[in-house]
């Protein structure tokens, strides 16, 4: 059902955990739906760049793999670039997702955007 890449990110998730003293936090999803993702970021303020990013995820294989992939894609990117990481970008980077997983478990890019928003709101821009 899942591509090899999805299984790899599910079995060996990158950047799992919480950034210490995060500059931004984004949480999406809802335990009743079975998926919750929490993205924490550390931002290099001078460069407006994501210095570090980590995730914690409750959810299915796709939820965990997309979370892991989002952090990989986002790390080192400028904030405006990171905001461009869409669900489709994540799914493509994973070699595709089963159709029913595209929407329900592919929330990690929303979580990242929320974390960036959170950072911006805290930093007044």
């Amino acid at each position, binding site marked *: 059902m*899942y591509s090899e890449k999805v*299984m790899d990110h*599910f*079995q*060996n*998730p990158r950047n*799992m955990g919480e950034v210490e003293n995060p500059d931004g936090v984004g*949480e999406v999803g809802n*335990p*009743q*739906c*079975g*998926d*919750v*993702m*929490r993205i924490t970021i550390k931002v290099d303020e001078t460069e407006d760049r994501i210095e570090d990013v980590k995730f*914690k*995820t*409750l*959810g*299915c*294989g*796709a*939820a*965990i793999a997309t979370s892991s992939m989002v952090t990989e894609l986002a790390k080192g990117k400028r904030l405006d670039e990171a905001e461009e990481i869409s669900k489709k970008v994540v799914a493509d980077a994973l070699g595709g997702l089963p159709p*029913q997983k595209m929407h*329900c*478990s592919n929330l990690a890019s929303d979580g990242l955007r929320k974390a960036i928003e959170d950072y911006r709101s805290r930093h007044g821009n």
Partner: protein
Amino acid sequence: MQSDIFLDNAATTRTDAAVVKAMFPWLEQNFGSPATLYWLGTQAKEAVEEARQQLAELIGAEAKDIFFTSGATEANNWAIKGVAEALADKGKNIITNGAEHHSILKPLSYLEKKGWEVTYLPVDSGGLVDPDAVAAAIRPDTVLITTVHANHEIGTIQPIAEIGRIARERKVAFHVNAAQTVGHIPVDVDLLGADLLSVSGHKFYGPKGVGALYVRRGTRIMPLFHGGSQEKKRRAGTHNVPGIVGMGEAARIAKREMNDEAAKLTNLRDHVFDWAKENIDDIRINGHRSQRLPNNVNFSLEGIEGESIMLSLSYPTVPEARRVYISTGSACVSGSLEPSHILLALGMPAELAHGSVRITMAKGDTQADLDYALKAIAAVAERLREMSPVYKKTRKQEMHGA
């Protein structure tokens, strides 16, 4: 590499080696159709009739009341639509409950769209239907009561004989979906008071693609398959001879081994529950403590989602690890966005249903296998909980259900 540990026997079972052996001659060598009157056909007919007898003996039925189908889904569809149609002039109410298998609930909602009225009784937190509630629900236009013998998800065994007595007394046809019980615990159509009873071959070490519907003599029912005159014109279609012979052999074996299997698995089941409660934090036992299939274990793990447990167990990262196969009521595997309707029917919150783990054992399983699986589950739970943004360890334990 060590062998896999398959703990999803409620979904399907390994076809017994003896069953495969019994089927084999009926594929290439004796491939005749029982509907034909020449020697090759009469051989096949005798084999089919022997299988009918074997199944009849397992469920205390007369062979002539058994009709072979392609599985329990067909048997359930046939029973429900067939009785509903045959008795449409008598009334259009059918009684069931909210914790039935989809192959019961979906035919019923199909009938609802066509003007039937279905009464869905509640189940208690252990999954039990209350026979008094059944009695109270019967209306003058009630033509059918359908109740599963044992639930496929939580293993709860319903008080079928009591419901059967009520149905008999009130002259309402009674259908029992025995897909999960035939070949595992005693099933006797007379003791259960069943007028119709569904059987699935692949649930008791028989082949996939074969099942049966028991129809008590005198029960009015319309065919689902119209066509040739097979099965006394009640179920058309060339007989699946190897499948039927295989299911017959599975029935014969079950009659011999079933009681020992049940005793052994009941012990193993209780051991699994004890170990899990002792060694895994924040776990809830789902279903009924005693009115339960010997091979069924079901619990929920807080703060984790079931598909990720299942996948982690089935695709272990340690190379020499054994694959462990379990099931879950999580939405992610239900084919819909909802978690198991069975768990929700117990009154369980959705998040716990998402985190449910179902272990259903087979006759060959050993304690060593189960201990291995349990340790793997505990390790996976720990790892996934570390990953979970919502899990907070509390070390609480609860029994959900009676």
